[in-house]
């Protein structure tokens, strides 16, 4: 054995190994606390470790991003499809919610007046392409018991009457059509008049031939008078928004804004049979 390894060195190594083994024993994971030196080292190194970890993490993310660029566009496409699908479902749900509310209102109205008249619900499927006439196509016709001159209402108020019928569709003339005329009266004062349309686009009607000496003012409610026989008495029509004198000086004219939103009709009730012609008038547009 060569002499370059002395016994002294072997002894030193044995002592070091022995101490190390001893230290290993005393620094096991279950010991009550760290030695002061360990604690000091850890505290000093902690911020440096933190910075280094951040740098490492950023680097790893960068590498992963580059590596996953190819996958991202695919993932993005899938996610976009999912978003679009979910948006569509959301819009459909909102549409169904609104339709449900409208149909519930129609049902309530029908139940409320079932003693007075029976109705059929019809959906709007088209409108007159021009701006002058207020003609609306409905999806119910003679096969569903719809006849010419039947009045049409919504829970808000009078809409118009049926003017033409085919087996599966019918044409509704709105009260704003210039050819429309409805026997009407002022609910408060019972003054009668004729309610005529102006032009479909205006969305307004006029109560004409009201004697000049009668009390007619803004805010008064106009209902059907039942005169003429087409419309049952007492159906709310609208509210007076402007009063003026007719050129002859003998009569007044009132501009009446209908309660029913005639520009946004989607479903309507066609009154098919009137049991009791005197309907208790509703309050404004309920």
């Amino acid at each position: 054995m060569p002499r370059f390894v002395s016994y002294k060195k072997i002894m030193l190594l044995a002592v070091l190994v022995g101490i190390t083994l001893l230290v290993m024993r005393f620094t096991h994971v279950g010991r009550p606390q760290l030695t002061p030196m360990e604690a000091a080292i850890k505290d000093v190194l902690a911020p440096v470790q933190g910075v280094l970890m951040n740098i490492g993490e950023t680097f790893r993310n960068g590498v992963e991003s580059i590596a996953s660029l190819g996958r991202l566009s695919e993932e993005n496409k899938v996610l976009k499809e999912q978003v679009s699908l979910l948006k569509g479902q959301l819009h459909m749900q909102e549409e169904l919610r609104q339709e449900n509310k409208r149909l519930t209102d129609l049902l309530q109205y029908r139940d409320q007046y079932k003693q007075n008249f029976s109705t059929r619900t019809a959906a709007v499927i088209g409108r007159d392409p021009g701006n002058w006439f207020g003609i609306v196509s409905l999806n119910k016709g003679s096969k569903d018991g719809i006849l010419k001159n039947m009045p049409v209402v919504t829970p808000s108020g009078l809409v118009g009457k049926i003017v033409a019928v085919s087996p599966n569709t019918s044409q509704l003339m709105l009260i704003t059509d210039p050819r429309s005329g409805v026997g009407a009266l002022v609910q408060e004062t019972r003054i009668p008049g004729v309610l005529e349309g102006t032009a479909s686009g205006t969305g307004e009607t006029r109560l004409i031939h009201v004697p000049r000496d009668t009390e007619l003012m803004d805010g008064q409610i106009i209902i059907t008078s039942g005169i003429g026989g087409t419309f049952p008495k007492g159906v709310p029509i609208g509210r007076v928004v402007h009063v003026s004198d007719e050129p002859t000086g003998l009569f007044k004219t009132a501009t009446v804004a209908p309660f029913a939103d005639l520009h946004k009709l989607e479903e309507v009730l066609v009154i098919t049979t009137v049991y009791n012609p005197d309907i208790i008038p509703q309050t404004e547009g309920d």
Partner: protein
Amino acid sequence: MRSFVFLLLVTIALLLQSTLFSFLQVSGVKPDLVLMLVIFNGFLRGSREGAFLGFLAGLAQDIFTGNYIGLNALAKMTAGYLAGLAEARFYKESVIIVTLVTFMVGIASQLAYYVLLLYLDIEVAPAFALGQVIIPSAIYTSLLVPLTFWKFYNSNEKGWLREREP
């Protein structure tokens, strides 16, 4: 063939006006797409063809609505004729000129319509007619011209609406 394609466009315009554009009304008024087509046609092809196809387009509209057959036919024929008068006088490739022509002819055509309504004993107060139908409708229709004229123009030059050799 050209007339057939034109009437197909009129049918599509009628369907759009009676459905989709009912939801796009501004102050209760929707644009008159059929009138716009008739004016474009008259402006690019002259009075004779303008009046003829204007009449056919109006007739299609009357048949579509199902009453007063001839009312729109005459009003649109007037529009086609008047737009045709502008054909020889103005530069055709300016969208501003076409917009102004559409506005003016739109008003004239609707005034003709108004007179025909009086003839049919349908009375509309002149103030309502002018302020709430005729002028707003002419404005709305002419505002759509910049969006649509070039399509029609290109089709008229080299597309479905061009004059084919016999």
